[in-house]
């Protein structure tokens, strides 16, 4: 019987991270931001070296429910700090939208070991379908979003079929080809708006309330983006729950088995075709939802936002955060969205920054910031 570690370690850690995030987001000065990034990086390394990080992880895995609840409270509280700073809310919302797409990508890249560079294309398919349905036919967001998801899922299935015969690099090549084909098609069709994209995408309306309009309650002005931020958080919550359950189920186990050894997987009755296609479809559904959220958030969608670069960026996020670990993927995504926004002056070097991050991760910590852990099964009695 292992001793349960105290909840206190996890509690302190969560509070510290919360404070760190709020401070970082609130700072406007670039030099100061840079200094903070370095400080946080050093602190994280120290955390790992001193062994405190292990205690934190044990504390989290022994008290998952309470600490998840605490984290959820912190996440819900975060936008409250920035009602006077819509720009920060905008970044946070964007980061959360990307999180939905990357936890879907993680099913393919992390769990199944299929490095898919086309997640940007599925993101775009979801965005375009939802935006076009809303724009041309006046379909409500609450119907066009699932439609975008289904369209992305369908194309995920289509792309999955030719990849079944391939593995590793060859599979990635197929996904790159798909990313470029869909990008070029959307660019050259007339009905997608071509290179001009689609403008004036409507905001979702819930019970007569337009999500995204500014509201003043008792002298406090709540920016519209705050409402959208909370809506995205709700979607992210659902996405996390689904991803968590898929991961800790026979689906996730089968994906991992295929990643580790295809031949022995088949000799134990797994159907590679079925499992891989499931991974592609589930991953694309997430991307489609993220795309629809994005299109209605920004109000504008063009091919630039579904290019190969977007897919590449999403793969970077998964690798940085930790493959096959949902929490890790969230961290990776937040870092790669927020840090470049904070260092706007170096915007020209953005791609260089992504490349550097990826190479240094693969060199120094290939398992990612938060590596995956064996699944925890509710054993009737621990032996």
């Amino acid at each position, binding site marked *: 019987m292992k001793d349960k570690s105290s909840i206190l370690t996890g509690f302190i850690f969560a509070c510290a991270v919360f404070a760190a995030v709020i401070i970082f987001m609130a700072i406007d000065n670039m030099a100061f931001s840079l200094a903070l990034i370095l400080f946080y990086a050093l602190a994280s390394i120290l955390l790992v070296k001193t062994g405190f990080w292990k205690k934190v992880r044990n504390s989290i895995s022994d008290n998952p429910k309470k600490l998840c609840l605490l984290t959820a409270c912190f996440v819900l509280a975060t936008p409250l700090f920035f009602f006077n700073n819509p720009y920060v809310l905008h970044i946070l919302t964007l980061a959360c939208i990307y999180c939905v797409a990357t936890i879907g990508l993680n099913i393919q890249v992390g769990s199944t070991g299929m490095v898919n560079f086309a997640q940007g294309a599925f993101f775009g398919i979801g965005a375009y379908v939802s935006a076009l349905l809303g724009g041309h036919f006046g379909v409500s967001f609450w119907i066009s979003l699932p439609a975008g998801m289904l369209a992305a899922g369908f194309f995920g299935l289509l792309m999955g079929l030719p990849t079944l015969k391939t593995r590793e690099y060859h599979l990635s090549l197929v996904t790159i080809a798909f990313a470029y084909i869909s990008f070029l098609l959307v660019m050259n069709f007339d009905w997608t708006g071509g290179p001009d994209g689609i403008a004036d995408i409507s905001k979702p309306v819930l019970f007569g309330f337009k999500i995204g309009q500014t509201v003043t309650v008792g002298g406090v002005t709540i920016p519209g983006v705050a409402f959208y931020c909370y809506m995205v958080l709700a979607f992210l919550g659902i996405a996390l729950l689904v991803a968590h*359950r898929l991961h800790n189920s026979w689906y996730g*186990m089968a994906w991992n088995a295929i990643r*580790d050894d295809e031949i022995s997987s*088949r000799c134990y009755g797994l159907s*590679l075709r079925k499992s891989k296609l499931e991974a592609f479809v589930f991953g694309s559904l997430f991307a489609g939802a993220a795309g629809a959220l994005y299109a209605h958030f920004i109000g504008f969608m063009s091919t630039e936002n579904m290019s190969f670069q977007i897919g590449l960026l999403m793969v970077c996020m998964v690798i940085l955060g930790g493959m096959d670990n949902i929490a890790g993927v969230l961290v990776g995504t937040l870092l790669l969205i927020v840090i470049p926004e904070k260092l706007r002056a170096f915007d020209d070097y953005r791609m260089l920054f992504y490349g550097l991050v990826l190479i240094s991760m693969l060199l120094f910590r290939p398992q990612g910031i938060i590596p995956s852990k*064996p699944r*925890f099964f509710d054993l009737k009695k621990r032996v």
Partner: protein
Amino acid sequence: MNTHNIAAKPLLQTTELSMEFGGLKALNSVDVTVSEGEVVGLIGPNGAGKTTFFNMLTGIYAPSAGAINMSGISLVGLSPTKIANLGVIRTFQTCRLWDDMSILENLLMGTYMRKKPGLFQTLLQYQKVKDDFAEKADEALKVVGEFDTALSSDYDRKVGELSLVDRRRVEISRAILARPRLLLLDEPAAGMDPSETRQLMGDIKKLQSAFVKMGVVLIEHDMTVISGVADKVVILNFGTKIAEGSFVDVKNNPEVIAAYLGGEAHA
């Protein structure tokens, strides 16, 4: 042992099974019959075609010629997935476990073909998934605990970190959890010391008495294992079956001696 059980039904039957790689005949017209409850030892020098034989039975290779019949169903042309679902389960000479997964995860995947919660339960009735895992995990740890209690108490270690012997134990346990009708063991005692080998023999015998209808084919170089557990021995040399019978019979067969010691057969 089941040598007295003459009326046992045949489980697996290969007729004139052949495999050619380019011009090389890896297996040439091999007839093998495995009955229910029987342990067949498959021996022969390196390169005799033993593992090739397993690869054909499990659908990894499609035979160039010949037939494989598993209680009335032809296995030729079926995928490994289908064959596994018919109850043919194997272990691998080089231990193909899922290295980045834990001991328990590997064992649980052995039960993958059993009834399990589907997508609806996974997304909307998650408690059922948890219960299912808990129940199967208990069984899995019991099976692996028979080999070594260290494996069942350290169940969340990654199998990639385990020693060779422990990996074999996990692999055999995983195979048992798949509830095979025909179990194919590829050199299970390789890398084990004599006491571990004895333990393995005991375990195979235990399996036999626990699953009386299960057929076993065992590739092994360690003759103490073969003589200890095999009801029947089949000897391959250069892809051809050169002898078949009880261990005592084949031990004195001059062709067999020649195959192992080299040189011409005197018979």
